[in-house]
């Protein structure tokens, strides 16, 4: 293997690092927006699955089953090219990733809410709290702590799956890499995609470590870890 082109391929990556960093910024923004949307929809959905009844509960359960049963790639293509929910690729990707994440986050929260001993709710009711008040003040704080490990997992999955937005041309990290490879120095494929992989790894690693901190910080003294 001739050493010179290899060197110049790495040099090409370094020269275009600003583009890759900009793509990383889009990836991070898309991850945060999607996780947030997923939380805002997924937490109430999980609570409805545990405490709700009737048509609302059935509707939420059905939506979850459909979303979890459809490939993310299909969801994002359907939303962008099929339904044209937004002309913005970022908004569309956020909706697709957010909905899919909501369907999974709802299950994390459902499990966490169900894992809180029934005696906790009973004791709160026995003091004279209403059902909603008791759930909010006693069950939810404990359930949120217990959902941190599952949430950590979900965060990593969403972060990596933002790369699927490449199919609708959003300028996130993988798309930037792909454009560099196709538009510039096609011999640098290995170097470009190794760099892209490394950036994804650093992002997930740092995120996981930070959430570990969160886990420690909010664990209940003397008790189970969150």
């Amino acid at each position, binding site marked *: 293997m001739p050493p010179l082109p290899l060197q110049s391929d790495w040099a090409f990556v370094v020269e275009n690092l600003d583009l890759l960093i900009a793509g990383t910024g889009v990836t991070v923004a898309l991850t945060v927006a999607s996780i947030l949307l997923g939380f805002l929809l997924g937490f109430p959905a999980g609570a409805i699955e545990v405490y709700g009844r009737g048509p609302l509960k059935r509707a939420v359960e059905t939506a979850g089953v459909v979303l979890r049963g459809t490939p993310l790639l299909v969801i994002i293509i359907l939303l962008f090219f099929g339904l044209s929910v937004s002309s913005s690729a970022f908004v569309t990707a956020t909706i697709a990733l957010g909905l899919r994440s909501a369907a999974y986050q709802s299950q994390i929260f459902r499990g966490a809410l169900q894992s809180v001993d029934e005696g906790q709710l009973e004791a709160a009711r026995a*003091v*004279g*709290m209403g059902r909603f*008040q008791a759930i909010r*003040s*006693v069950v939810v*704080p404990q359930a949120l702590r217990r959902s941190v490990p599952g949430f950590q997992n979900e965060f990593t999955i969403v972060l990596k799956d933002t790369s699927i937005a490449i199919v609708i041309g959003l300028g996130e990290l993988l798309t930037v890499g792909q454009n560099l490879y196709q538009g510039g120095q096609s011999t640098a494929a290995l170097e470009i995609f190794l760099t892209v992989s490394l950036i994804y790894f650093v992002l997930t690693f740092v995120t996981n470590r930070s959430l570990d901190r969160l886990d420690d910080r909010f664990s*209940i003294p*003397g*008790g189970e870890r969150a």
Partner: protein
Amino acid sequence: MSDPLLALDDVYKSYGEEQVLSGVSFEMDAGDVDVVIGPSGSGKSTMLRCVNRLTEIDSGDIYLDGDCVTDADTDVNELRKQVGMVFQDFNLFAHLTALGNVTLGLRKVRGMDKATARERGYEHLEQVGLSDQADSYPAELSGGQKQRVGIARALAMDPKLLLFDEPTSALDPELVGEVVEVMRDLAAEGITMLVVSHEMGFARSAASDIIFLDEGRIVEHGPPEQLFENPQAARTGEFLSRLETTHEGE
């Protein structure tokens, strides 16, 4: 004569086919300490839970301080403000400190501000001898300490009646004493207590009345001297002698 503080009138309760309470009636006055005994499955805990409507009765009436609390239009949260409960498994709020456990109801139910609630909370922890553990979480406390916090939590709401559902059954034998001691103090202070327990020491020394429940019916109801020394029903005698042998040394 004034109304009894608590009156059950012909209370029935079943779970599906299983009849748990079959026409239970009794009264207790303010300041009384009534201890309910009986074999497991006799309906003791169900009866207790019917009083604060954690369990709904099928028929009959329950009166608290003259008001029928089993009416359909009774506000259960209002009722529960007046009736404290201490659980067998403590059920302390796991995410809150001992003080947090005692003050949560004061703040969320009584609408007290944080500072006032803390002050009240400390007083009640003091009352059960645990003011030095105010900042400990339930998982950091022994079983006996947990149950004392449970008692403080119930007391803090200033209830007219305290219900105890087998408060010492989940405790290691060496930890029973500290909880019983607190209960004795409360009894001496004139707090009205309805206690499901087989702590015979407590029953003998603190009870105004013993209620012997079997198969959902009150078999015998009277002062401890009567039940222990001269039981009227053969079943009471049998049960008590069995209890003495199994609980020897307590």
